[in-house]
């Protein structure tokens, strides 16, 4: 039994209910809860709700509403986070409804979707919220029945006093429980007593998704709402010079056309602000199609950003061909040492064999299926914002600063997000919507076209890596050197594997400046490291005449038993665990005959994943027959959803490695829609994916990112087996771009 200090107080939830009331003029309810059962009719609404803390309320009939604190982006937290609360509360999942919580920093911490951290960092708080409420219900029953609280047990939403034979549903005690003082300490369940965590529960928004109910930001509607779109500079390195809106304004349904500035001149940018296009032209009208048509009639003059620009943006128009040259030059001339073990130079001098390979990857656009959009209703003294954002807390600050309102006068509601992959960490569109609403004095829904979205920036950086390995005469890996950089950031994680497993190790990084805006993209850095490093290790194993899994396991054994250096940031035993499991499950040692197989493993965002990819040749084209995945993310909260996330990451990883990339000509992205920018499609996905989890009782870690990177390496290694070619440059399929 674990006891934890509670951090909930009465004030916080009272505030929460005031916010939830909101006084919003919506044509349909955004706060309608999601039901956990396929037949919502099983759930009758109670006459009264009693809030036991900011995370949950209990109805007089025993129904339970659990708030899901974090933004839902498709990672399934709207189901899995409430599952954790429900388990500690000890209720039947059938009687749970889920509501998306608004941004409320008084109650919730880290309301952010990013870094695969929602479950990991939410774990203790969510358990505590459920356990606290359960404790209060037990205390209420003890008081009512005049028995010691320790004698009161619970099961599936019912309180029992075995000695006297008394029992009562949570609903009967909820009113009394809500009057009690929040306990200072509560007991948490033993892991073996979990009844909901570790069982598969379906997506709580599933019924709404498959029937087309409004859920997403783009579906948002309010009385008197108008539609806005923006026109941004066509190239990085350009800014607005002037515009003539005469023709656009004369188009049917158009209300206004004007320029907007995203930030005040004296504003100090924070990390989630984007600075490439800070002056835009906004078109506002009655309907989306009318605004789209008027946008075509805009006459805008853009000009190059001057050398002495106040934004500190590098000047000039960039081209893809120069990008790779610049990275090569920077790698050779301006690399900085990030980690050194032993004497790598000497190891390479003494080596019997040196293997040296270079890997590159292009810029990539996030392309979530729901284009950027946001709703804003800005009044003189209050602003409501609603829509898809991964960073409500950060963007609330930017919006408040831009509008000159105190934080408490800016309310942010989170809608379900049609994907994000990092794109919605950067909420410039929230600020733009707010500025437009302020100007037109009306509720506004800002919508980006796909072209606006794909050419706006915030791309996955372009990357470049040089790997070198030194083998001695007995084919032992005696030296390892990685020199890795990007535009504009290096993806290097100097203390990750194989650091710690090689005596002589050198890691260096470099970076190249750019005016193209970039940002976090699913598994930042790792999304390149894994494919480069894991492809390289495959070649090294081959050169050493070793089995690629055994080669990695030997290194990990070294890292476990006698690690080099003290700051290796991975657990070698867990790393080896997923490799061993995938070896067994794929029948690597017994069932590889005649198969073109590749393996890879990677650790990022606190979880470990290994893959085996099987490729068959069909009419000369490689077909991905099967992908095996072994995952160690500690306790698996919602197993089938975790399988889904892993399957999706595998498809996504294969797609981006094979097909996706963005090129530039004179500062302009050369792809701006799905006719030119290739994403993986149905027939290109693996025919079968088999996912296994390492079973343990370690506190859970995230899954939104960890299963994404390694499959790319396993794919490259399997392709080599299938056709004898190594893949050094992404995308692997060369005719994918433009």
């Amino acid at each position, binding site marked *: 039994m674990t006891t934890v200090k509670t951090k909930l107080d009465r004030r916080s939830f009272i505030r929460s209910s005031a916010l939830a009331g909101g006084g919003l003029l919506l044509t349909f309810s955004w706060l309608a809860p999601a039901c956990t059962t396929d037949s919502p009719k099983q759930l009758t609404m109670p006459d009264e709700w009693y809030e036991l803390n900011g995370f949950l309320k209990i109805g007089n009939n025993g129904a339970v509403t659990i708030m899901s604190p974090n933004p839902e982006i498709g990672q399934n937290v709207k189901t899995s986070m409430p599952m954790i609360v429900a388990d500690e509360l000890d209720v039947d999942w059938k009687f749970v409804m889920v509501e998306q919580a608004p941004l409320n920093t008084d109650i919730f911490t880290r309301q952010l979707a990013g870094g695969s951290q929602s479950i990991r960092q939410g774990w203790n708080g969510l358990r505590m919220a459920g356990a606290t409420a359960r404790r209060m219900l037990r205390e209420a029953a003890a008081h009512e029945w005049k028995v010691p609280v320790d004698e009161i047990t619970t099961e599936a939403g019912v309180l029992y006093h075995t000695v006297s034979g008394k029992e009562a549903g949570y609903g009967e005690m909820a009113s009394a429980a809500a009057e009690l003082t929040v306990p200072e300490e509560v007991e948490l369940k033993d892991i073996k007593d979990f009844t909901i965590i570790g069982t598969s529960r379906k997506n709580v928004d599933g019924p709404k998704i498959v029937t087309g109910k409004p859920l997403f930001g783009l579906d948002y509607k309010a009385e008197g709402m108008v539609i806005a779109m923006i026109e941004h500079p066509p190239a990085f390195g350009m800014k607005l010079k002037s515009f003539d809106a005469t023709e656009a304004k004369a188009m049917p349904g158009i209300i206004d056309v004007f320029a907007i500035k995203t930030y005040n001149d004296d504003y100090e940018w924070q990390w989630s602000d984007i600075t490439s296009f800070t002056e835009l032209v906004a078109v506002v009208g009655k309907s989306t199609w009318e605004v789209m048509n008027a946008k075509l009639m805009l006459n805008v003059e853009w000009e190059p950003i001057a050398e002495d620009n106040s934004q500190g943006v590098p000047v000039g128009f960039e081209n893809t061909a120069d990008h790779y040259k610049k990275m090569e030059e920077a790698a050779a001339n301006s690399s900085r040492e990030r980690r050194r073990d032993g004497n790598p130079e000497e190891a390479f001098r003494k080596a019997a064999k040196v293997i040296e390979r270079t890997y590159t990857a292009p810029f990539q656009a996030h*392309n979530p299926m729901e284009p950027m959009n946001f709703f804003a209703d800005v009044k003189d003294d209050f602003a409501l914002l609603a829509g898809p954002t991964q960073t409500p807390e950060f963007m609330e600050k930017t919006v408040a600063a831009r509008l000159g309102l105190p934080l408490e006068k800016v309310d942010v509601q989170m809608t379900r997000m049609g994907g994000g992959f990092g794109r919605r960490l950067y909420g410039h569109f929230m600020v733009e919507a707010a500025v437009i609403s302020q100007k037109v004095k009306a509720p506004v829904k800002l919508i980006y076209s796909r072209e606006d979205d794909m050419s706006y920036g915030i791309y996955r950086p372009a990357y470049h890596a040089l790997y070198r390995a030194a083998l001695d005469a007995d084919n032992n890996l005696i030296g390892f050197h990685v020199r890795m950089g990007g535009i504009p950031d290096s993806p290097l994680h100097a203390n990750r594997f194989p650091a710690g497993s090689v005596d002589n190790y050198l890691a260096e990084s470099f970076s190249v400046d750019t005016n193209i805006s970039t940002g976090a993209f699913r598994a930042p850095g790792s999304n390149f490291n894994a494919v480069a490093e894991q492809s390289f290790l495959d070649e090294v194993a081959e050169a050493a005449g070793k089995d690629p899994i055994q080669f990695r396991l030997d290194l990990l054994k070294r890292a476990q038993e006698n690690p080099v250096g003290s700051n290796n940031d991975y657990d070698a035993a867990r790393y080896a665990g997923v490799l061993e499991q995938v070896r067994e499950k794929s029948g690597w040692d017994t069932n590889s005959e005649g198969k073109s197989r590749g393996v890879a493993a990677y650790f990022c965002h606190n979880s470990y994943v290994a893959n085996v990819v099987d490729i068959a040749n069909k009419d000369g084209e490689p077909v991905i027959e099967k992908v095996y995945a072994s995952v160690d993310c500690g306790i698996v909260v919602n197993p089938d959803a975790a399988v889904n996330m892993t399957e999706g990451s595998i498809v996504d990883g294969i797609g981006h490695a094979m097909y996706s990339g963005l090129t530039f000509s004179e500062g302009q992205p050369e792809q701006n829609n799905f006719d030119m920018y290739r994403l993986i499609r*149905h*027939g290109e996905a693996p025919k079968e994916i088999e996912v296994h989890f390492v079973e343990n009782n370690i506190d859970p870690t995230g899954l939104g990112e960890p299963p994404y990177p390694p499959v790319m390496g396993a794919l490259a290694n399997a392709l080599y087996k299938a056709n004898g070619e190594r893949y050094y440059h992404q995308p692997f399929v060369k005719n994918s771009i433009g």
Partner: protein
Amino acid sequence: MAVFNLNINGKQHEVDVDPSTPMLWVLRDHLDLVGTKFGCGIAQCGACTILVNGVATRSCITFVDSVGDKEITTIEGLSENGDHPLQKAWIEEDVPQCGYCQSGQIMNAAGLLNANPSPSDEEIEMAMHGNICRCGTYTRIKKAIKTAANS
């Protein structure tokens, strides 16, 4: 502007819009049927798929003046209670991640099953090629279509 009488989900709807307005925006902006999604605007992603006389059609390039009295079905009208075999299969297989493309996937699959009630894996892949799922739920979508076809 012009008035159009549209047959959508078995009901008559009157809208007064520019004749070049795509059905996507007629549905979303004028009739509040927002289950049909905007993804690309150029018929490359399939998020906006509806049925026109039972045939899967990209509503983002289907102009309102081309529809006439044809029967339009959107995700909201695929079944009365969300219990079309495809909707049930989608829940059963717990397909969605972000969920945004899924109404288009379901409608495209409905068009497929109308034309071919028991498609092979290859036929499913061919028919669904135009529907992008950025979350990568393709393997589950295929399973759900087969589950629905077999039910």
